[in-house]
């Protein structure tokens, strides 16, 4: 007797964690049993609307998807209601302070941990219900580099190639490609223990790539690398993205993430604070744009005029320029400049600058840790 999977009647969450107003658009997990998708204790159940869940999600453009992911360790809520999705071939930055829940959610995606509630999909397959299918298409690079004693780089990669089921010519071709791609060919016979941090990271990336996965999860890949190694890593990540791989990258080096990521997610204390491209986050959060005006006349007069405009804040007159924080759309900005010129201010230069990812991060997060 085979029955179709029933819908999830209620979420298995403590009262304090009833999903908040902005419930994500994604449906509830496919693999939810009447008692919850994974074995967690029967705790008081809040009201969550019933929905029929699809077996696997069907959006071909979405490669990674987290749906209302929760992970509790006793009283510690490492991940709380995180939902986002990553399009195929994108590089997605995962940003947050230490202890924010990045590694926990990445481990869930890598099938190494189970969520207390919620679901995660890779290429449409549930990480809870079909981990084998997920592992087949996923490369994972943890923040720590697991090494073996008395093993050379070649043997290390060869072992993982075998472990992924690569055999015969396929394995040799793949090993050859990985050594080429990561530039570790010269290190093939050297013992891993003697490698530099940068070379270990390359090898680690090579290991994650050995079975040619379509999705890569890289946890702090640039940690502890020198500038050159970081640049090379960035190039490799860009190269992989060009080859159609989807990458989820966590890092503390935000300038680098801003350069290589199509979009980012910022989390703190297990909660998702913002997600989207840097511009989208700025727009959503009504981020201030910094405008610098240079004029032939007295900057004080210009500053006075700008201060009267409701879109301008924190007007500061300096030697020959005026710096303001501007809130508004590009059209408003054009209108402001037009108005100033019509008012007779001899403006010679207007430059604007979006806030960097670092500044956004500082503004969005509060620096709290659990």
């Amino acid at each position, binding site marked *: 007797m085979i029955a179709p999977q029933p819908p999830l009647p209620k979420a298995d969450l403590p009262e304090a964690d009833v999903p908040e107003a902005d419930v994500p658009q994604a449906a509830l997990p496919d693999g939810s049993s009447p008692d919850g998708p994974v074995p967690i204790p029967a705790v008081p159940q809040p009201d969550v609307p019933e929905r029929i869940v699809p077996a696997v999600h069907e959006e071909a453009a979405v490669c990674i998807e987290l749906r209302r992911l929760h992970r509790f360790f006793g009283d510690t809520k490492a991940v709380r209601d995180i939902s986002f999705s990553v399009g195929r071939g994108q590089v997605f930055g995962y940003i947050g302070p230490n202890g924010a829940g990045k590694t926990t959610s990445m481990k869930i995606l890598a099938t190494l941990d189970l969520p207390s509630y919620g679901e995660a999909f890779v290429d449409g397959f549930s990480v809870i219900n079909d981990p084998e299918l997920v592992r087949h298409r996923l490369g994972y690079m*943890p923040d720590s580099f697991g090494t073996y004693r008395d093993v050379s780089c070649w043997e290390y990669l060869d072992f993982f190639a075998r472990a992924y089921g690569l055999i015969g010519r396929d394995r040799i071709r793949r090993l050859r490609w990985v050594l*080429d791609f990561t530039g570790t060919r010269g290190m093939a016979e050297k013992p891993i223990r003697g490698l530099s941090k940068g070379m270990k990271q390359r090898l680690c990336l090579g290991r994650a790539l050995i079975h040619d996965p379509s999705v890569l999860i890289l946890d702090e890949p640039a940690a502890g690398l020198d500038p050159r190694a970081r640049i090379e890593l960035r190039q490799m990540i860009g190269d992989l993205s060009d080859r159609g791989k989807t990458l989820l990258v966590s890092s503390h080096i935000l300038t680098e993430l801003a350069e290589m990521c199509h979009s980012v997610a910022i989390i703190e204390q297990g909660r998702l604070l913002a997600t989207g491209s840097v511009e989208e986050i700025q727009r959503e959060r009504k981020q201030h744009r910094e405008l610098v005006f240079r004029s032939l006349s007295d900057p004080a007069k210009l500053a006075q005029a700008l201060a009267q405009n409701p879109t301008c804040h924190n007007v500061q007159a300096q030697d020959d320029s005026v710096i303001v924080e501007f809130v508004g759309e590009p059209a408003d900005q054009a209108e402001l400049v037009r108005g100033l010129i019509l008012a007779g201010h001899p403006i010679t230069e207007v430059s604007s600058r979006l806030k960097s990812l670092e500044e956004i991060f500082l503004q969005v997060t509060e620096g709290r840790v659990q």
Partner: protein
Amino acid sequence: MMPTPNTNPPNTNPPLTTGLDHRRVDAALSRNDRASSLEPSLEDDESRDRTLIEILRGGEGHLGGEGGKGFADPTPPWLRQIDEWATRLGDRLNPILVKETRQALKSRQFLTTFSMLLLAALSWTVICSLQGMPAIYYLPWAPQLLVGYYVLLAVPMLLVVPLAAYRSLESEVDEGTLELLSVTALSPRQIITGKLASAALQMGLYLVVLFPCVAYAYTLRGIDLPTLALLMAGLIVIGLGLTTVALFFAPVTGGRTGQVTSLIVVMALLLGVQVILGREAIDMIRFGNPLRLQDTLVLAGCLLLAGGTLCHLLLTASAIRLTPESENRSTAIRVAVLIHLLATIAAAAMLIRWFRDGGELVEIGIPTLLAAYLSVFWGLVGSMMSSESPVLTPRVRRELPATFAERMFLTWFTPGPATGLVFACVLMVLSMAAAWGMMVEASPNGSASKLTGPRTAMILSCAYLTIGFLGVRLIISFLRTRNTFNVTVGIAALAVTYMLMILVPYGVGAYLNDFRRFDYSAWQASNWIWTMRIAAFGNLDPKVTYIVSGFATFGFLVHLLLTGPRVLPQRWETPKEVEEEYRRLAGETADEAKEIDPLGLATEGGDA
């Protein structure tokens, strides 16, 4: 907020482009191609690949290198063919075995142990031979030599190798490499069996070192070939058994304290076995085997049957520890338990039948020993089964029995505390009944229905265990409302239940008797220690036996009625996309198997 879908093409196997100096590789390959025109066997792709490996591994000189004189591989073609077959067969080996062997053969521990063993064996041979001069020419001198060889061999086989396997698995957990293995296609069972196979290989190497010495000792007379073979086989089998136990303990505990504790337990166990077995083995070497060859073979076969299935159970449990919670972790264990149970009962029955002239030692001793073992075994296994998580993940539900016949016979193998309790109770009663039957069969003048001391103890242990499992179920279901924990907590819950069963009636009795000594009465029926003690001496009132067993039966039936709907869970449909993907993967694997199968052994649809 959904990121804009990227329009990049879907993932494809990337071409070889970046990074390295391909010119050098290509040049070397073209040199090889030129050379291979003289060597037809090198024209195929695989030879090119092997050549490439050599190049990548810095072995260009082997091919002639820069300024070399062309390809001059003197290896005859038949040898290359064998090499090729060996390579292809190597592809089918457990990757953990390949990795562990590579590691072990380069490790300082192996090299030190190997050289020390070699040196010590040679030294012992010379010293013992010289010491025995000139008696060595006319007196049997093998036992003296063999005692030394046994001691030398037992240290690596029974101590070093099991500890190395323990440490190997523990370090996988410690150093985070287990996580890396977990995301590969390797199953937990492959990880565990790979470690065991590597240990077996090392044992084989150690044995090979001593083989010439043992052969030399045999020529000096004083020991027969069967005893010698038994000694060596016993060493290997017990070494493998101890390795299994060590692997079982390795991933059991987390945290530094747990690791130290389990290491101490393993060390104590290994040393204990070393001492006990050493004494027996030395006695056997010096005084010969006290049993006839047939008796020895039967005894060894029975012990191997029971011990082998116990090792299988321990290996399954170790693998289960590494399996994610979302998967079915119960069925494999229950099957292993059933196999072990059948094997143990069969072994005990065989021993009773074969050694029927052994008197009471066999007639009463073996069934009693079996019953005692079953009580302890079921106490541990049943309490853990009764404390399984009641939640069936969708993944588990997809694999539940679907047809009527499957549900009739396989429901008790499905995960969950309710099915676990029923499985444990039913099999426990059946296995105890088997022990009872053996006792009745072996006893020359005993009737089947007579309640002798050991028989009453058997009934009572079944009843107390059933009550204990029900207590575990109650405690665990209460605890699980707020916590998650693994099934080993069930053992603690059983201990708590048993403590309460002793303390409550005894406390009440003591209070009612003004804390003076008082005699046993039916009110102390739940005090299992006291009741079993009285029963063992045959002084127990049969009423108490009926009360306890009746209470256990009633509790079991109530549990069965209350959990009826839960023990018949419906199977859930596997999503079509998932089924298709699994089919696709299975097809790929079968193709790969065919591709690498050197002897044409691969069958259609078989996995690699």
